[in-house]
């Protein structure tokens, strides 16, 4: 187990290095250069050239024959290995500072969305499997089909309009109301409110969290419900379940002890995969809900060709997905004693 973990971690480091190279080349291969994007309507070739020079973007990518260290990639890697992700071209803010400020927002939203997806999706899937071909099964299947085919930005605006503007139950966007002043600690505002002894702030943060979490969690919810249903159906048809029933166990005991535990394995895999999907979905959700996370930040950076932010954001997202996958793999062993890592 220990050596497995070390090998996995080493592989993650290699993957990260590979990704840093790929993203470096990739962002520079997208047509449209940062100097022009920064200048906008004012961009003239002369102004862009001057700005490019000032930003060091006119340097060679990999190799400067006269001064090997004065090329973009060696400089970037040199800084990266010291934990410096560079500085946003437009904002002059270190990418790492922005990441630190914004990641907790994305994490809080993703966790809430995943919780919503699990708490609704798993029971729905189990229910649908147990009552196969019933009204509930059809309802769950229809809703999950709708869920995966609904564009996130549309769902987000719809939720916001209906629940905030029409009904006035929840705030339309942002993480906190204007009247709430909360000094972040962990960056998870719901938690920070409690830690700071401001339950009203926690409540406010929670109310702001609901709509974006639903918007972001709907697609994973639909996927989780479907996987749970089919996996559950699969397991319910297995011999050991029949045996358990034959032994005279109650339906409840069969479902919970024998079927569910085995049916969960593919669900866990999906949850791992959804970690990446959540980061992707966060781009739109964060933009719609003015959520100050990394999704909307990287999205903006791409349209501005802000290389350091795109690079930092992608490397960081890759790290999150790698770690999520590692956790999924490790949790297999916990769920299924037959799986052993060595």
């Amino acid at each position, binding site marked *: 187990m220990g050596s497995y973990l070390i090998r996995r971690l080493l592989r993650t480091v290699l993957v990260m290095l590979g990704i840093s190279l790929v993203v470096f080349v990739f962002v520079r291969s997208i*047509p*449209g*250069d*940062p100097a*022009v*994007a*920064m*200048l*906008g*309507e*004012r*961009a*003239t*070739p002369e*102004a*862009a050239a*001057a*700005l490019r020079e*000032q*930003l060091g973007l006119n340097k060679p990518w990999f190799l400067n024959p006269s001064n090997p260290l004065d090329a973009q990639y060696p400089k970037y890697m040199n800084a990266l290995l010291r934990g410096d992700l560079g*500085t946003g071209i*437009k*904002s*002059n*803010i270190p990418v790492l*500072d*922005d990441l630190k*400020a*914004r990641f907790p*927002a994305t994490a809080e939203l993703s966790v809430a969305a995943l919780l919503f997806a699990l708490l609704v999706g798993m029971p729905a899937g189990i229910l649908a499997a147990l009552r196969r071909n019933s009204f509930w099964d059809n309802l769950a299947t229809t809703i999950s089909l709708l869920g995966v085919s609904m564009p996130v930005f549309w769902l987000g*605006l719809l939720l*916001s309009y209906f629940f*905030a*503007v029409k009904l*006035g139950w929840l*705030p*339309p*966007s*942002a*993480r*906190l*109301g*204007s*009247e709430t002043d909360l000094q972040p600690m962990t960056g998870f505002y719901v938690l920070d409110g409690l830690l700071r*002894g*401001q*339950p*009203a702030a926690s409540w406010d943060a929670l109310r702001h969290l609901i709509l974006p979490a639903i918007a972001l969690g709907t697609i994973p919810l639909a996927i989780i419900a479907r996987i749970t249903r089919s996996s559950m159906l699969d397991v319910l048809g297995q011999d050991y379940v029949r045996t358990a029933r034959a032994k005279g166990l109650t339906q409840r005991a069969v479902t919970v002890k024998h079927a569910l535990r085995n049916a969960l394995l593919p669900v866990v895999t999906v949850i791992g995969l959804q970690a990446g999907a959540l980061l992707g979905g966060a781009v739109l959700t964060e*933009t*719609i*809900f*003015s*959520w*100050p*996370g990394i999704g*909307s*930040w990287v999205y903006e950076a791409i*349209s*501005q*060709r802000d290389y350091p932010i795109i690079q930092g954001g992608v490397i960081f997202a890759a790290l999150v997905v790698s770690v999520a996958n590692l956790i999924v793999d490790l949790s297999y062993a916990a769920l299924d004693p037959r799986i052993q890592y060595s």
Partner: protein
Amino acid sequence: MKKLLLTALLSTLSAASAATLVFGGNGEPVSLEPGNITDGISILVQRQIYDTLVDFEDGTTDLKPGLATKWTPNANNTAWTFTLRKGVRFHDGTAMNADAIVFNLSRWWDKAHPYSFRDQGRTFEIVGELLGGYKGDATAVIKNIVKVNDSTVRIDLNKPSSVLPNVLAAGYFGIASPTAIKKEGAKYGTPASKPVGTGPFVFQSWRTGDRVTLLPNKLYWGEKAKVDQLIIRSIKDASQRLNELKAGTIDFANDLTPDSLKSVQADKNLVAVKRPSFNVGFLSLNNRNQYLKNEKVRQAISMAINKKEIVNAFWNGLGISNASFVPPVMAWANSSKVPADYKFDPAAAKKMLADAGYPNGISLDLWYMPVSRPYFPNPKPIAEAIAADLSAIGVKVNLKTEDWAKYLEDRNKEPGFDMYMIGWTGDYGDPDNFYGAYYGSNASDDINWNPSTVETLLQQGRAAPTQAAKAKIYQQLHEMTYNAAYRIPMVHSNPLAAARTYVKGWVPSPLGSEAFNSVSVPGKK
């Protein structure tokens, strides 16, 4: 628990009694360091914290005193002397004086200034654009910045300029505390720093990606703020800004789409606010194209587009169409020899195209912007309408677009776009800011036309000793540009804003941002 609840209740009560003004901005400021930004929301936040040397009268582009009470040129407009307001202090308590002004101007303009932080990637690009270049550049307007005495600063120029005070009044050039800049170093202007100006509001906090919170400056030299707190929130999505307004979670907001006008008017809690127009959205015709190098073809194209109808359809009455490149507030720069409106006459246009040698029509690409701007809120359907009008005279139009960063780059690359949509929002109230940016030596490369004649006129305009002399020069430019029809003005739009009905005293500036010290929220619950 009881104690917690009580605290929560008390904090709710005290929050309710304080007047908080909440503005919905269309994004997050890039930086709160003056001189180093060009985006609207950074300027808007900076307007609250900083004063400029010269200011604009509310709702206009006319000049009024700012930190300078008086500004006078020498005889030939080659040096401007600014007399500073006495007794003004920065928010950190230090004095605003000639040293502070020289410090601010110098760090923008002088690349070798120890506090310009150029090595950190600071570009101060706007100084290069509006003032021709930096210290030592052959093209730079400014030659020297001189402290005459504690309350007098003189700016010597390399070439005459009548518009220097107008340029320095632009929202980019807020005056910051030298002490604060020296203290914060290269991180000045980022969320981790504390920007310090002399303006009506004092910086309190900037929560990344979310909001900037400001408090009133109790010692402000001018009109003091009427609220206890000003929050400027970042809400990127225009429909979400409207949702927030309707839900009452923000008090006022900018940059709504023209099609939300009806929805605003239908809501009894909201009032629509039309910002005075200070922009131009236009169609640019590339003379490298074999057809478009013919003046008749360009004029035919201009005549074939029903601009009035297009503006009515897509701007909901929030804009006008005329035959001038400068916005209506600078109508003094328009020539009476040019018709007020472009002529719309498809039959005559068709004949003109035939006379030019193309009786069977021609085919051209029309590029539309992939982004929304106040002057083209919805570029694609507008482009479709233009294409439909042009097809009526036999100009077959292929609609094209691409990613914005690429669009900006490709329009300037050989051979450029045949026809493309773009626009401009002014920085200060002078025609130089429009004609100079799109016809002068600083213009983009997609037209190659008469540069020496135009540049000479532009130079004369900048050097003109009187307003009358200046008007004459720009009227000449107006005639030239109208007849040449390289850039066909489509619209001068009124960007749509809206406020809750209890918001009082908001006078929107044509330039896109104004200080909120006059705004109050008497009926806000």
